[in-house]
């Protein structure tokens, strides 16, 4: 890699704008002799020792100046890590971090890049000491260890989780700059766990058990009330994410997952399920996560995430440096089921074309869409809109604001507009 390429941001590499400028390593006319090679790398220690010497340097760009076909590579490692050339990272504030959607491919969010939202830090929990209590309106109050929960029949599914505050600042105008900053509180993982229904059956539901309070064992003892008949079919008590135990910031060792529901219902570090006859009206379902309407009333228990989509490439803060082919890429999702169709406009919503959807197209899961585009160097406004299997179409900002005003803060799913100027700069606008 040249110094010039070292300075590229992941975005620029993503767009491939400098792909022709990268020099190709060529085979020298006189191949180095084995002796010369060993002298340079290891001299006294031999090839095996060279591995030992080189292994610590993995991760240092300084070690990759030569031809990788002429130097032994690094040895196997117990727990892998990404190439040191890759730098996609979450955008952090103390109690939240946002997924770099512009740097991702396909639909799965790497666990290390899954967004975070916590209300008083990430607790450190010893799984051997953790318990789940199921009580309240049940026949038998039960206590489960993580080991016991893992013995139940297991279920795995891909599902997105989106914070209902995602894109929330956009209610007040085009506030954010990048897709990560604006929409980065959504991620998709494969989640594995036990069906909530199975665990509740062990305790036995008593008459009147129509709501369930879920409580975390974090320093906020986060709590949400959920209507039992609406969540029982799909809710999972998850202990794994993308094939390994949950990340601490995702609720290790146990979290609730209610596919399609706003993220705060998927209570992390889950320690308690209490069956009750009516909602407990916790702070997180009264003071927070409720939407203030123009008439001063507030909507409550707004659970399902409505259909939404966003173009991730090109997106805010990026720059198209050359005219010609651009694959427009983005993500679409709906908390009510599958994505039926995604349409893309490059002229601010006047004309729409149907995007390609990449398989798999799963219910309540991020779905990747793509569309071919030839940028002619002129101004453009890129938009995408998602239509889900219920027939619901993602609204324009104007349609949304006409009904809900601008004081909601939560549950913003309007069409995102990216304006591209003649220099290729992409920025967030509302049209």
């Amino acid at each position, binding site marked *: 890699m040249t110094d010039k390429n070292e300075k590229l941001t992941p975005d620029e590499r993503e767009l491939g704008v400098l792909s022709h400028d990268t020099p190709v390593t060529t085979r020298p006319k006189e191949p180095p002799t084995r002796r010369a090679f060993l002298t340079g790398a290891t001299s006294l220690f031999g090839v095996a020792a060279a591995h030992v010497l080189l292994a610590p340097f993995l991760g240092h760009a300084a070690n990759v100046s030569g031809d990788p076909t002429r130097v032994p590579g690094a040895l196997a490692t117990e727990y892998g890590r990404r190439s040191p050339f890759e730098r996609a990272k979450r955008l952090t504030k103390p109690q939240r971090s946002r997924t770099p959607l512009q740097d991702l491919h396909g639909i799965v969010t790497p666990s290390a890049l899954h967004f975070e939202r916590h*209300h*008083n830090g990430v607790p450190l929990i010893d799984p051997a000491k953790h318990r789940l*209590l*199921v*009580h309240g309106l049940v026949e*038998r*109050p*039960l*206590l*489960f260890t993580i080991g*016991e929960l893992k*013995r*139940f*029949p297991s279920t795995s599914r891909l599902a997105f989780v989106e914070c209902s505050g995602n894109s929330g600042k956009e209610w007040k105008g085009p506030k954010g700059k990048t897709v990560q900053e604006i929409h980065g509180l959504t991620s998709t993982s494969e989640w594995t766990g036990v069906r909530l229904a*199975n*665990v509740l*059956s*062990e*305790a036995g539901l008593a008459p009147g058990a129509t709501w369930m309070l879920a*409580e975390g064992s974090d*320093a*906020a*003892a986060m*709590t949400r009330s959920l209507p039992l008949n609406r969540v029982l079919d799909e809710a999972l008590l998850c202990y794994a994410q993308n094939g390994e135990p949950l990340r601490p910031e995702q609720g290790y060792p146990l979290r609730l997952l209610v596919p399609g529901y706003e993220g705060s219902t998927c209570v992390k570090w889950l*320690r*308690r399920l*209490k069956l*009750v006859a*009516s909602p*407990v*009206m*916790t*702070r997180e379902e*009264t*003071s927070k996560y*409720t939407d*203030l309407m*123009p*008439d*001063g*009333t*507030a*909507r*409550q*228990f*707004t*659970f*399902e995430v*409505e259909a939404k989509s966003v173009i991730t490439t090109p997106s805010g803060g990026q720059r198209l440096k050359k005219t010609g082919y651009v694959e427009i890429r983005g993500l679409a999702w709906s908390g009510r089921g599958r994505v039926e169709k995604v349409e893309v406009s490059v002229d601010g919503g006047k004309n729409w074309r149907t995007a390609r959807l990449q398989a798999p197209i799963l219910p309540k899961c991020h779905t990747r869409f793509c569309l071919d585009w030839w940028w002619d160097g002129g101004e453009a406004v890129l938009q995408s809109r998602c239509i889900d299997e*219920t*027939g*619901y*179409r*993602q*609204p324009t900002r104007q*349609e949304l604001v*006409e*009904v*809900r005003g601008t*004081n909601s803060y939560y549950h913003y799913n309007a069409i995102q507009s990216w304006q591209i100027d003649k220099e290729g700069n992409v920025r967030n606008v509302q049209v």
Partner: protein
Amino acid sequence: MRGQSLLFVLLVTVAVGPADVWAASKNGLFHLGRVATPEEIQAWDIDVAPGGEGLPAGSGTVEEGQRVYAKHCAGCHGATGVEGPSPKLVGGQGTLASAHPVKTVGSYWPYATTLFDYIYRAMPFVAPQSLTPHQVYAVTAWILFQNGLLDKAAVLDRETLPKVRMLNRTGFVPDPRPDVNRPGS
């Protein structure tokens, strides 16, 4: 020997049919977990419902609450509950339908029990669950008094707290979505 044992098991399995081998439970249960003791439940059962269910014994006055607030809360929420930097607790009445709504305990919260529940489980931010029930009753009383929802002489306990009438008690409505672009519209 090992091979013969395995063969025997296989023969028995075939002879009696697979159901007896595979179905561990006839009632669909897995018989995992153990019954929780009353003490174990009590240790975690801290939630307080709008009717007052779950409120612990104890009581607190506005005057006591002022001292608790000054010591444990004012650092983040301001001297009188309006200064911040953490969320405003006091004021904002009459602003919810305006262009600049101020959502506080007094203007927005529908239940006084929620205030007790939240302080008891999650406050103070740097030392959650460190206040006694008496302290939580007291500081709840002070915040409600500051919002004009309680007399200065009031005493809060498990009987009186659920009866406090909050200004926005009827301000919440169920989710009516889809409200924009309804299918078929």
